[in-house]
């Protein structure tokens, strides 16, 4: 599964996309998988929301293998 990264998350990971081996699980499981795969993102990941298929998702929400997932760190537009 592809996970899109932005701004300081992309900078921390050194890339704009992480490819995560994924069958199924919750958003919380996905956070754990991202942290294992790329420890550099951990500090900011803890302060980030997760968007699944274009909507913010709670940690208890299910994430299917084909989902479109993005990590949304604290915003600073305007």
């Amino acid at each position: 599964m592809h996970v899109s990264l932005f701004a300081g998350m992309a900078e921390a990971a050194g890339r704009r996309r992480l490819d995560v081996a994924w069958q199924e699980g919750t958003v919380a499981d996905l956070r754990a998988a991202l942290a294992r795969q790329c420890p550099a993102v951990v500090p900011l990941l803890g302060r980030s929301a997760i968007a699944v298929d274009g909507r913010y998702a709670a940690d208890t929400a299910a994430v299917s293998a084909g989902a479109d997932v993005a990590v949304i760190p604290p915003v600073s537009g305007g």
Partner: protein
Amino acid sequence: MTAVRCGLVHDPIDTAAVLADVGRAGAGANVLFLGTTRGLTGDVVTRGLEYEAHEPLAEARMRGLAEEAVKTFGLTACAVVHRLGSVPVGEASVAVATSAPHRREAFAGAEWLMERIKRAVPIWKCEEAEDGSRTWVHPDAEPGP
């Protein structure tokens, strides 16, 4: 004419067009807010800003907030444009325009919208300092859904 116009652009914002977008015969009050890149914050020099967004989510959130503003403040119309990419000093990164029959609603709607856009739309700013160093800005507050 629809009451709400939202968009992300990668070039300079046509601020006159944003304002013109909200002009209506029944609206005597029109407010335009521009957030521009500050070259100086106190004594600290900024060379420029760069913005990026989760574009589909940002557009959906901007539209949702604009529709909420129209309903909450009784706006006649409302327009929101955010620029992405590099925004030089003095140029606008964001433009919000509102119109309403009377000025209180137009002011309150524009101010509320800017407040919400800064807190709830997935857009990020990178500051380039005088020495060329670049820093993505991620405030301590949580990004609320």
